[in-house]
């Protein structure tokens, strides 16, 4: 019991820390004015110093401010895309488990189809087809990340539907919709929550990698992927900071969210909750 309380406390602390970091980064990204990022060639290519902790890029722009603004863009994409994706996963998973055999087969075929193509390529294709930019990227990521969660939820619903208490509920005169809302959905909440949190780092990394490859956000928008792809040109000139520091910031954010998801899963998962 005590160990559980400890883990709960840890998860809560981690969640609060993460929420603070995310909110802070997000707010800073919104608050930093465009002029603050506008660089001057007098300061081009400076190594990290007290006045520019992340150094400056080849155009003399402060990299810390650009990184923060980039992270906030990435987070917008990440949160929106993982929310949409998890929503699709729940709908599709439930439809597949409850629908007729033909619906189930069709959905499983669709899942195999989407999973059969490497994510990055599919995101690039969709984003490119929709004219890139924020919209293309969002749709691309949201449309490709629901598959494994949908499978999980389908399996969960199938298993729940076989439970005697669901059969009893039906014999007590409850409708399918009532059973879905009162018996099934509450059981799916943990899967949904953990899936949502663990989707977020995926979404951010794909946003960065697709933008890095030039199929995502436009070059004038500060995004981690854009910063990294610009820095490539100057790495050979010894400007290591322009790639390493923004990259490390991205990795840190992703790790933080991933760790949170893992902890939440361990608290909600009955196999590990009592540890």
């Amino acid at each position, binding site marked *: 019991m005590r160990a559980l309380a400890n883990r709960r406390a840890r998860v809560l602390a981690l969640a609060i820390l993460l929420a603070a970091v995310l909110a802070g980064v997000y707010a800073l990204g919104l608050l930093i004015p465009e002029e603050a990022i506008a660089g001057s060639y007098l300061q081009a290519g400076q190594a990290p110093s007290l006045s520019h902790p992340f150094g400056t890029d080849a155009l003399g722009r402060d990299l810390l401010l650009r990184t923060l603004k980039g992270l906030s863009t990435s987070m917008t994409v990440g949160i929106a895309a993982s929310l949409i994706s998890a929503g699709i996963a729940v709908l599709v998973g439930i439809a597949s488990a409850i629908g007729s055999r033909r619906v189930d087969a069709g959905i499983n075929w669709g899942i195999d189809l989407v999973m059969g193509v490497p994510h990055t390529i599919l995101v690039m294709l969709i984003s490119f087809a929709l004219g890139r930019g924020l919209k293309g990227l969002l749709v691309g990521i949201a449309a490709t990340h629901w598959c494994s969660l949908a499978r999980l939820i389908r399996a969960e619903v199938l298993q729940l539907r076989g*439970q*005697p*208490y669901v*059969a*009893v*509920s039906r*014999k*007590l*005169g*409850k409708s399918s919709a009532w059973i879905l809302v009162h*018996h099934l959905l*509450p*059981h799916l909440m943990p899967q949904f929550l953990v899936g949502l949190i663990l989707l977020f780092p995926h979404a951010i990394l794909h946003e960065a990698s697709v933008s890095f490859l030039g199929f995502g956000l436009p070059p004038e928008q500060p995004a981690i992927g854009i910063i990294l792809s610009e820095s490539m040109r100057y790495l050979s000139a010894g400007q290591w900071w322009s790639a390493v520091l923004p990259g490390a910031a991205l990795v840190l954010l992703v790790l933080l969210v991933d760790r949170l998801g893992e902890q939440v899963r361990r608290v909600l998962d009955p196999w590990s909750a009592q540890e």
Partner: protein
Amino acid sequence: MALEAKNVSFRYGRRGPFVLEDVSLRVERGERVALFAPSGRGKTTLALLLAGYARPQSGQILLEGKPLPETGVCPVQLIWQHPEKAINPRWRLRRVLEESGAIHEEDLVALGIERAWLDRFPRELSGGELQRFCVARALCSGAPYLILDEISTMLDGITQAQIWNALLEAAEARSLGLLAVTHNPALAQRIATRTVEL
């Protein structure tokens, strides 16, 4: 006024062996029938068929001469062998009882259900305590026929006696039709007005 199975045959899947072949059974209201058979003869299957959980491949399940209603509270309620599976583990027990429509105080008293249990979760109660809730839920639903599928097999003697006493009293007072599936000849003799061998 009876629940009856007429020449019922059933098998699981399309090619499986027949679990039940040409079985007929009749339970009148106010009658307590013990269904008695060794393992693997399809006792539970017959219980599922009579309560409308499954449909026979041939033959009919008739309630007062008509097929069982598809919607609404089923007038034949099945009490399962394993109470912990027949109760949603995420629900407090008050909600479990409320699912049947209404909570009747006198049923709870007769079954020895304590008020404090209503606010607990299923994992906080023992199997015997949970089975009382399953019985209470079936009684509260107002169904005139109850199918009891080995409901006391895994319970201690005192709990068995308490549950059966409450059930027999309720059956007497409301002239319920009971079909008790059991392995135990002594129990069958004690509770039933008639014994049927499958």
